[in-house]
């Protein structure tokens, strides 16, 4: 290394140091501590006296894999991601297409209106939706009644609680992805559409052969962010149902929160966090691979 290179490297490190220091202190160190914690039975007794802490190896992980509650939570989270994820992407794409269409008047107004739920406090949203879902006075059941459908106990029926949560979550979140899709749509050069129309392509053919392929990178980004975000679903069930009825809306992160901060089983909760991390990593890698191997 020449003297100049060495000096450049040195100044690079100096400039990076504050950021690296902050990331190490507030991210890598806690993550490392959590990893160590996941091999102990750190709980309320250990908090009072570290002499009551036991190193238990992979016991937490083993107990988790044998716990029916973990599998329930995993199943619920999977349900939420599998149904809510695609639904959310589809709704945001649809909304983006509508807002971006040439015929739409006041696109700014609609964009803002659709984006409003994203910036609204979830707790306020939950209060309103609880009324919408109310089995007796709810607007939703009133509408169903007009169609002659008997009332549904949305949040109380174990089979309907998760669909109800998904519906609310999609309504609350689709605005964000919609904005990203609109940006993607506006990046598609209009001459392509003009050329396609001259060749006699219809609306559907234009969508299928121009819009979708050119939205590819946007799609990947949106799908990945939605997957990661939806895997960590917490606030919606936490404020709407607290995981009930009979744990049918208990998500992995909600379970982690309960174990960690309610019962103070930090070791067990840390193990759960690392399992969730592994699952999200695997899901993201799989998605990236699928994109790459897909024909252009």
């Amino acid at each position, binding site marked *: 290394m020449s003297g100049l290179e060495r000096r450049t490297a040195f100044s690079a490190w100096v400039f990076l140091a504050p950021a690296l220091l902050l990331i190490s202190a507030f991210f890598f160190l806690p993550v490392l501590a959590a990893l160590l914690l996941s091999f102990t039975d750190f709980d*309320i007794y250990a*908090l*009072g006296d570290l002499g*009551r802490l*036991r190193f238990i190896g992979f016991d937490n992980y083993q107990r988790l894999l044998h716990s029916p509650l973990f599998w329930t939570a995993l199943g619920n989270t999977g349900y939420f991601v599998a149904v809510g994820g695609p639904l959310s992407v589809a709704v945001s794409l649809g909304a983006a297409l509508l807002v971006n269409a040439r015929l739409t008047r006041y696109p700014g107004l609609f964009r803002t209106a659709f984006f409003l739920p994203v910036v609204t406090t979830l707790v306020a949203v939950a209060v309103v939706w609880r009324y919408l879902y109310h089995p007796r006075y709810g607007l939703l059941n009133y509408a169903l009644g007009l169609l002659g459908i008997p009332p549904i*106990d949305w949040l*109380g029926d174990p089979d309907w609680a998760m669909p109800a949560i998904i519906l609310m979550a999609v309504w609350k979140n689709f605005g964000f992805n919609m904005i990203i899709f609109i940006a993607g749509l506006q990046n598609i050069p209009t001459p392509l559409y003009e050329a396609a129309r001259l060749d006699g392509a219809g609306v559907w053919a234009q969508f299928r052969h121009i819009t979708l392929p050119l939205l590819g990178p946007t799609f990947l980004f949106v799908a990945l962010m939605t997957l990661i975000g939806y895997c960590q679903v917490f606030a919606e069930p936490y404020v709407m149902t607290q995981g009930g*009825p*009979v744990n049918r809306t208990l998500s992995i992160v909600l379970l982690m929160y309960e174990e960690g901060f309610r019962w103070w089983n930090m070791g067990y909760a840390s193990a759960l966090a690392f399992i969730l991390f592994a699952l999200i990593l695997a899901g993201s890698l799989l998605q990236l691979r699928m994109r790459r191997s897909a024909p252009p």
Partner: protein
Amino acid sequence: MPFGFPRLCALLIALTLLLAGCDSTGDAPVTVKFWAMGQEGEQVQALLAEFERRHPDIRVRVQQIPWSAAHEKLLTAYAGDALPDVFQLGNTWIAEFVALRAIEPLDARLRGWPPAARNDYFPGALAASRLDGQTWALPWYVDTRLLFYRQDLLAAVGFNEAPTTWEDWLQAMARLKTLDDAERYAIFLPINEWQLPVILALQRGATLLRERNQYGDFEHPHFREALVFYLSLFEQGLAAPVGHTQVANLYQEFANGAFAAYISGPWNIGELQRRLPATLQSAWKTAPLPDFAPPTGASGQAAPVGVSLAGGASLALSRASPHQDAAWKLLEFLAEPEQQARFYQLTGDLPARTSAWRAPALAENPHAQAFWRQLQRAQPTPPIPEWERIAQRIAYYAELAARQQLSVDAALAALNADTERILEKRRWLLAREAAQ
């Protein structure tokens, strides 16, 4: 540039010195930090002016903590070494804070009290804060659960007074169900609560846990009978299979007769007085919980009051506090019968000291009098840190059984297995203690 860097530094140093100088002036009053929850935190301030007048050398700084976050906040404060000098503790949390070694035993200080003052507490209240032979907290207010019911509806089915046995209640509830065409449940029992199954089990004589609280005892016939009775209320359609979250407005439902009875605590006296229309104010009443009639052939009668849960909150001293003497004075002040009676008027929280109940506001309130009778027959839950966790499992399995997704025996076996796992660490600690 108005300030050069050196000048700015000098200014900052001067300021720091000035502030430090202020801090160390001789007889500055001691500041006692006090955390109280929800309503209590808001209302207790009204009592403190008198305390500060009597103790000019002590200042109290109250911080109000919402109940929903209180437990987590206290635990994180302990972990971060930031507990206040005095704090309110739900009685079921005392065992946990003893295990954490976060609170100071009070026996040495209590010895200075006249015996009459110590005996003035409800017996269940002081017992709830005793553990390992020591008193860890001073009861602040007591709490129990009993029946709130619609007297007018009950009279319509031929009961002029609340029945005192479950057998009579079953009859009344069955008649209430068919009283008229209105869509009605006899009683509202939130399907995801553990309290009533546990109360019924205590009434049946169950002990819940066994062998120094090291194992669950839920497959015991006493507990099983109680659960079967509880489930029958749902099976017969007397109680709706719904949780708290599905009832948008409890008071509205109670007012329009969607259910005729509800098991709840003292805070609902004030709520019902505020929220029910004036025309209904003479229609609702409180009554102690019923008891099971003795089996046919056995001698004796059912007790006029069935067992309920002893709850409430206490005040504890932080072990790490540098101002324990001043903090103890605050505890003693809040324990005075006059302050307890005033606190009742401010919050509706029932005094833990029996002599405070002579205040007219309590002695002449028929709703409160039912609580007085109920409090004579109240039992605490097992005093172990793991109890709330176990209670949560009871609620979960009771709900599964009530929704008929699990048979009674399967639910009880699973409950015992879960409890055994939750108590594993406790067994290890006790075994280690015994070996030493």
